[in-house]
């Protein structure tokens, strides 16, 4: 973990949607090149947290700061990978990957896009349309599109929940490798899968709600590079897993929350 000034600060953040209190006083920071996983049960407000960090939702109270600057709306410094891929069905794979760059009015990105397609193993499919791809390939496009912006913060909203188990493991490793290679990039990943969080995270934050509050925050010190097996066989694994489960269950059962 990096102990220097944090890259992202979520400062006493509260969010309401349509009169409902979704998040209540969230304090959280992400250091440069730190991988933070947020887990919580459905409806606990974790996606809302991510959307607010992305600048897609205005806070009702508190703020999100990136390098000390308050995030007031979407910025190219933060990119998001979407749960249901969020690909444009009428754009080819290549043109979907180029999307962010084109919106930003950047030029001379052909080589960069070539490289991203190569890294994500999409070169052979670059002229296909999304409906011709499997879920795993679609999410590769989503990841490539997010990375094309060279973001300082990568947000991943349950990115592997819509793909099969085998593909999920492959994609998890790919994302980890991409993050490890990119030393300026911090990441926040939302999941409800404890093992996924333990595989990917430097630090895990459990959100329990509604309204969403931080129920637990634990560092994960399992050495990298990690694999599903190396995580499971690490000495701290049983303890961490139990702690996280307890926190998650406390979140879904209001009577335990005060304990």
């Amino acid at each position, binding site marked *: 973990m990096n102990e220097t000034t944090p890259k992202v600060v979520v400062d006493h953040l509260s969010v309401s949607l349509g009169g409902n209190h979704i998040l209540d006083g969230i304090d959280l920071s992400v250091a440069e090149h730190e991988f933070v996983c947020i887990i919580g049960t459905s409806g606990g407000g974790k996606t809302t947290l991510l*959307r607010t960090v*992305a*600048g*897609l939702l205005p806070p009702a109270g508190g703020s999100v700061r990136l390098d000390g600057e308050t995030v007031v*709306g*979407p*910025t*190219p410094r*933060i*990119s*998001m990978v*979407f749960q*249901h891929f*969020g690909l*444009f*069905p*009428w*754009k080819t794979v290549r043109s979907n990957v180029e*999307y*962010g760059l084109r*919106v*930003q009015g950047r030029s001379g990105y052909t080589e960069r896009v070539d490289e991203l397609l190569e890294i*994500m*193993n999409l070169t*052979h*499919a670059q*002229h*296909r*349309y*999304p*409906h*011709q*791809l*499997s879920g*795993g*390939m679609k999410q*590769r496009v989503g990841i490539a599109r997010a990375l094309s*912006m060279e973001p300082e913060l990568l947000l991943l909203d349950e990115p592997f929940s819509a793909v099969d188990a*085998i*593909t999920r493991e*492959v994609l998890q*490793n*790919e994302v980890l*490798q991409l993050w490890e290679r990119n030393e300026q990039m911090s990441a926040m990943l939302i999941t409800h899968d404890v093992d996924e969080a333990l595989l990917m995270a430097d630090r895990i934050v459990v959100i329990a709600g509604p309204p969403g509050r931080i129920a637990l925050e634990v560092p994960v010190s399992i050495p990298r590079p990690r694999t599903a097996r190396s995580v499971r066989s690490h000495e701290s694994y049983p303890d961490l897993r139990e702690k996280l489960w307890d926190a998650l269950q406390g979140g879904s059962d209001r009577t335990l929350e005060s304990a």
Partner: protein
Amino acid sequence: MTTATEKTEATGNGSPGRPRKPPRSGLSPATRWSLRLASVLAIAVAWELYGSAINPVLLSSPTAIIGAFFEMIADGTLTKAMSESFVVLGVGSLIGVTAGLVIGLAAGRNQVFATLIELPLNALYATPTVALIPVIVVWFGFGPTAKTVVVTLFVLFPVLINTMRGVQEVDRELVEVARSFCSGERRMWFDLILPSALPYVVTGLRLAIGRALIGVIVAEFFTAFSGLGYLIVTNANSFQTDRTFVPILVIAALGVLLTALLELIERRVVRWSARD
């Protein structure tokens, strides 16, 4: 790092480029065309046999109609009527489609505007446009202007309502994607709103073709002393059944042609669709 899973993940055979589309049905194009031709031929033969056996006023026959067709071209009645009707059809459709698109796009994106026009729109849409023709005649007389207005009204609503729906049904997640990449409103129109509304617009246009043809013929029944509709009425009134069928078949052929043309355009433009 991904090569191992590539084979299982890619849909189809993993070959580059556009994958082959499976045929829409089990029939080959040649079979389909011969079946189409056979059905038209069968109708024509049955009509010919039965039509020439009875009084020509009742049904006439394909050969008599073909004869009348050339006669009417030679004496100029058909070409004159066609040009009169087609001008009305063209101008009326153009105005109707343009207005429908513009109002539909605006209403789809602006809730205040959509709510403002909602009740009058529904009322007008529910009213059979035919019922308005007498009023339109009062306003615009019996000339081509009235006919054009009728066609415009017939075309306007299907285009407007479908376009509006298309814009409204834009995928919320994609709007979020566009916003997260800091897309401005204008880019969003081109990247997201227009492409996703396009299939709806095409549906509106398909409905509009049929309605435009109805519109022009009905308008000519009621109003102008010109056009294909007028030709139908006068020939029928003088019991020239073969000459009555000529404009009817011209209209039918035009409908088939326009629909086929639209399908061709649709296939070009909406290539990304997952309909297959």
